[in-house]
């Protein structure tokens, strides 16, 4: 600690340069925090996927619907404990920017298949009884100030009613919570029966099936058996575990991990040169001062560590500030990715990268400082 004032003073010898270097590292780590945070949030979504559940979609495309009649056939497949279905609704509330994650679903099946969704039984009963009833996540309720008893109009960008209108009205009858998965509290579920009766086209079909298996170790055999049901038909299915389904769904957006990794690699590669040249310049300017340190008794190794410590202080300080900024801004992404806090693992990764960056950029100037010959340095050679 007694060397800290010396290291700190050396760091701020050229204030403007240090501030710009610090800002460039800070911004890089802000970007790292945000992008890696999104990446980690998506990975967590995949990791949370239930191993007992299979997703049955059209083999042609995820967006293609399947016949409702498959449900009974799937239920007969050995090893299947439960089957239900959902359909993507695609709506917004009042303004297109107020996008709502909405699904037509079978109330009883949904609650049985997703035990992580907590809905009071009287609200489930009300949902079953109410044709236009809908249950919403607690985050969505908070976002729009919706409460039980409200009548909510939604505009579908896909589905028109038999009369040609795309405006649908629902009665909020329940508000669910997902304590173990806070990111899922922004969904809107409503009765499939209302949806199927009212829509103008594609009647008698569903978006996808969700299947609960008795033994997850038999998932592959059960998936094959389900797909066999529709083999060579116009509605061939593709059955995956929920984890595989989440992964393939996210890949439709893009390989998030691949994109994030490449962007961050480019950013840190550029940063390596920017910070490295800044530190090198700083050491070049301080050759006589470093020689004085050696003159008064600092060993070559001590001078090396002093320069490395400067690099560490600069990189870790900037990284911590950048990650703190990312943590402060991260809640703004809640509506997009459903996660409200920057995963701690991202902060730990960030600090480790900052240390590696400091070592990578500081080693060369530190080595140069170590190798300084006192006589030559004092003589300005």
């Amino acid at each position, binding site marked *: 600690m*007694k*060397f800290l*004032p*010396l290291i700190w*003073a*050396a760091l*701020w*010898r050229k204030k403007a340069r240090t501030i710009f270097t610090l800002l460039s590292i800070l911004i890089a780590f802000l970007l790292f925090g945000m992008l890696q945070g999104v990446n980690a949030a998506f990975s967590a979504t995949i990791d949370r996927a239930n191993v007992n559940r299979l997703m049955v979609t059209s083999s042609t495309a995820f967006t293609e619907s399947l016949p409702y009649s498959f449900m009974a056939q799937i239920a007969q497949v050995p090893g299947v404990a439960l089957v239900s279905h959902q359909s993507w609704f695609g709506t917004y509330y009042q303004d297109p920017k107020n996008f709502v994650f909405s699904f037509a679903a079978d109330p009883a099946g949904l609650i049985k298949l997703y035990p992580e969704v907590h809905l009071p039984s009287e609200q489930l009963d009300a949902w079953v009884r109410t044709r236009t009833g809908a249950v919403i996540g607690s985050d969505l309720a908070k976002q729009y100030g919706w409460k039980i008893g409200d009548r909510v109009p939604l505009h579908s960008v896909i589905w028109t009613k038999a009369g040609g209108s795309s405006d649908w009205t629902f009665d909020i009858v329940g508000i669910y919570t997902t304590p173990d998965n806070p990111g899922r509290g922004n969904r809107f579920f409503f009765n499939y029966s209302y949806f199927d009766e009212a829509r103008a086209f594609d009647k008698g079909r569903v978006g996808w099936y969700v299947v609960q298996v008795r033994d997850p170790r038999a998932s592959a055999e059960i998936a094959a058996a389900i797909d066999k049901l529709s083999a060579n038909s116009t509605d061939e299915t593709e059955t995956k575990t929920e984890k595989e389904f989440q992964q393939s769904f996210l890949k439709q957006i893009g390989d998030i991990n691949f994109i994030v990794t490449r962007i961050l690699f480019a950013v840190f590669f550029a940063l390596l040169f920017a910070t490295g040249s800044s530190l090198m310049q700083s050491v070049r300017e301080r050759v*006589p*001062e470093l*020689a*004085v*340190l*050696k*003159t*008064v*008794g*600092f*060993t*070559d*190794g*001590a001078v090396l560590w002093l320069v490395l410590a400067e690099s560490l202080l600069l990189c870790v300080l900037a990284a911590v500030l950048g990650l703190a900024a990312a943590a402060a801004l991260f809640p703004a992404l809640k509506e997009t990715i459903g996660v409200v806090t920057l995963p701690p693992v991202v902060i730990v990764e960030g600090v480790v990268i900052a240390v590696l960056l400091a070592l990578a950029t500081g080693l060369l100037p530190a080595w140069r400082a170590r190798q300084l010959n*006192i*006589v030559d340095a*004092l003589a300005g050679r």
Partner: protein
Amino acid sequence: MPAIVSLRDVTKRYTRGKQSVEVLHALNLEIQAGEFVALMGPSGSGKTTLLNLIGGLDTATSGEVTVAGVRIDNLSGGQLAKWRSRHVGFVFQFYNLLPQLSAERNVELPLLLTSLSAAQRKKNVQTALAIVGLTDRATHKPAELSGGQAQRVAIARALVSDPTLLVCDEPTGDLDRATADEILGLLQYLNREQGKTIVMVTHDPKAAEFASHQLYLDKGKLVDQSTKAVA
């Protein structure tokens, strides 16, 4: 009095590119403890090289260099650095203070290598600054000090770890006559009152008059040595 500096057949050769230049030729020298020696001679005569060898900043090509009872020509780089921190204080022509540090932080530098507590370091720094008469400028940075004040800070830094030997390379070369005389008076005080052994390189005959002994170096050899009575 015992010799605090002893050089036996010391040769120093520099190689610059393909050229090898011998700067000091089989030089022999003894400096007694408590002496204030002025090392004079024309440019290129090897004064600073000799000073660097005595101060352990450079190593001889051949010969023996013994300072404060230690054969420093045998020491490794790390050992030499530790030896310097204990035995030698350096004063340079251009002060060589760290511009980003205050006067007291500059003076404290050699003490950072000791096991002294922060309070002890502070006390020693204050004592050193008091000796050079700069207690009131302790928090000032070098850019806020005059040349004479900056050199006093450099002397305080050289003194703070109570070294055996003070090595001064043209300590007044960058100062006007009056300020130079003040600095030389201070060095003389340190020699006479504090018992510090001082070796000073200078071009200035007036500066050399403050020393107790004058040595003349020409083309890498001591050509004449006159002893001046201590005033």
